[in-house]
């Protein structure tokens, strides 16, 4: 008992000492980039032992709220903030970090399915209900389709993946835009909801004739079949890190990066891609934290990009990195620009 008390006392005494010589930066937000961000934070901490990050992957919505409320030093979100959200957090700066993609997977007795724009939208609108629908057959000569029902599967939990998927459908189908629209949760015309990528995958794998959408990283790691999608130029493009990066290269970036890269131009662009963002303050109040954050961001969009591909995230294309460099140079700490240390 005495020993225990002593140990507890020592532990108490030890904590403040540890905290005093290292800077703790708190963040919260998106779950999608969490594996990459943890890798970044631990690698950055190895190079800079005095800086530690504490990141809670509570979801983009929670990240935006906590950032707006000022309870965290930085936020993270898969979707850019809406105008209404920016009105509440006027000094937010979006820093795109990497790209992700959403893939359409299926469970059927054939392989090599290609999806045209109209077919994908009509399946999710509930207008195409059978695999042997003539519209599917026309786009896939050479595949013999069974007379089987299509079971539509989608995410039941609010998610950035759903945001990207519905954003794409809204762009390729006027009917989808009018009837459903886009968001992290929407009112689905048909289908079953699975919780998380694993829930959707479970449903698709178990239900013969099912079709669903999951993140590219999840599909790659679990070797799920992924349908090539028809992009803006009429090419069928298979999802990959290269075709995802190509999508970002085909978009004209506004200064605040609040842009959708779904259905991007470019013959190799995969049409269901998206940036994921870190949210930081234009002018940081805390000198030490602000300077550390700016330096970390610089590292993340340069050296940090090398960690993206092994974890199945698509790195930023060069043109985007050049833009982000300017944005990082524009960040202030207590009203003054920050001298970025050499990395």
């Amino acid at each position, binding site marked *: 008992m005495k020993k225990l008390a002593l140990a507890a006392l020592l532990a108490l005494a030890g904590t403040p000492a540890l905290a005093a010589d290292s800077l703790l930066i708190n963040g919260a937000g998106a779950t999608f980039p969490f594996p990459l961000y943890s890798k970044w934070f631990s690698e950055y901490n190895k190079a800079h032992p005095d800086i530690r990050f504490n990141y809670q992957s509570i979801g983009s919505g*929670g990240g935006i709220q906590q950032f707006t409320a000022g309870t965290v030093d930085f936020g993270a979100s898969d979707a850019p903030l809406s105008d209404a959200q920016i009105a509440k957090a006027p000094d937010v700066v979006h820093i795109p970090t990497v790209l992700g993609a959403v893939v359409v997977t299926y469970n059927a007795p054939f392989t090599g399915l290609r999806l045209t724009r109209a077919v994908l939208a009509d399946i999710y609108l509930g207008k195409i209900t059978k695999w042997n629908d003539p519209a599917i057959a026309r786009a896939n000569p050479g595949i013999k389709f069974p007379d089987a029902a299509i079971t539509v599967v989608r995410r*039941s939990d609010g998610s950035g993946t759903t945001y990207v998927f519905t954003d794409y459908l809204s762009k390729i189908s006027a009917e989808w835009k009018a009837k459903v629209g886009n968001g*992290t*949760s*929407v*009112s689905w015309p048909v289908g079953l*909801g*699975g*919780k998380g990528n694993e829930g959707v995958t479970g449903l698709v794998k*178990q239900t013969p004739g099912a079709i669903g959408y999951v993140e590219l990283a999840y599909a790659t790691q679990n070797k799920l079949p992924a349908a090539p999608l028809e992009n803006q130029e009429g090419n069928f493009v298979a999802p990959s890190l290269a075709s995802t990066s190509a999508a970002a290269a085909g978009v004209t970036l506004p200064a605040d990066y609040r842009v959708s890269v779904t259905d991007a131009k470019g013959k190799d662009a995969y049409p269901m891609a998206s940036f994921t963002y870190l949210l930081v303050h234009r002018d940081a109040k805390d000198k030490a934290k602000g300077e550390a954050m700016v330096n970390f961001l610089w590292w993340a969009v340069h050296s940090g990009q090398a960690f993206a591909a092994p974890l199945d995230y698509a790195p930023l294309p060069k043109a985007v990195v050049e833009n982000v460099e300017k944005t990082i140079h524009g960040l202030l700490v207590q009203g003054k620009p920050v001298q970025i240390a050499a990395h």
Partner: protein
Amino acid sequence: MPPTSDTGAARATPAPARFANLGDRAWGWGISILGGTILVVAGLVLLELGRVARPAWEGMNVLRFLTSTDWDPVQEKFGALPFVYGTLVTSAVAILVALPVSVGLALFLSEMGPRRLRPPVAYAIEVLAAIPSVIYGLWGLFVLVPWLRGTLEPFLQGTLGFLPIFRGPMIGHGYLAGGLILALMILPTIASVTIEVLKTVPAALREGALALGATRWEAIRMAVLPYARPGILGATLLGLGRALGETMAVTMVIGNSPAISASLFAPGYTLPAVIANEFAEATGDVHIGALASLGLVLFGITLLLNAAARILISAVSRGTRGARA
């Protein structure tokens, strides 16, 4: 009157009208404060839910929210009915399946089965109660749902397909899957409490019935069960409470589709499931407000069902006492 149950702290000891000394008085206050804390916490939960829910109430009347079947976060149109329906239907299925099974199990263990079998079975029931709900959910997803789709649902449709509750496409995910998972999860609660309740039935009652020439089944039906009825109802109430609030396991097998359908095979949605699913990524105040309002609705349903069950229990125990006199 003999004690009806030895599970709760309800064994009444007459409290002295005035506390004798300071120590007793301090103890009395301490306990009152601790007891009052529960009320305060419940009140704070209600207040906070109301505060978060408020943005959803502007320009929307309560009746419309409760009766509307829309759930469209993009257009910010919200209605609670599909979730209320799903919660009630899955809980009803769960009780209908779990109650007879657990009472049967309890009767077998305490009245009929060999004495040696009791400890291992009682232990197994406790283990069932300790399994985390996500494990039940995974089991449901990978074992129960395919079995429902491939075996039970075709069988039910083939034999009882004239009933509207067994019609429609058989997907596996739906009210039936949710209800059966819940039945499995509340079974240990109902069974273990019922076993304790049956233990309190005086041997004299049983022996009296047998001495009058009743068969074993007649003794159970006419002497044991009537005596234990309030306790069994209480056990069911505990199970119902768990069924109403269960989130994880249900959301994994119910299909998460905010629709109302007469068929048990159709996908549905429950109140706790939609809150858990959408809260983390809900960004608009109205969406968050609507989810908090669903929380209030769940609160209300739990309260109403508890009150109804309490009235039922007191009515039944009055009846039992009458029969005994």
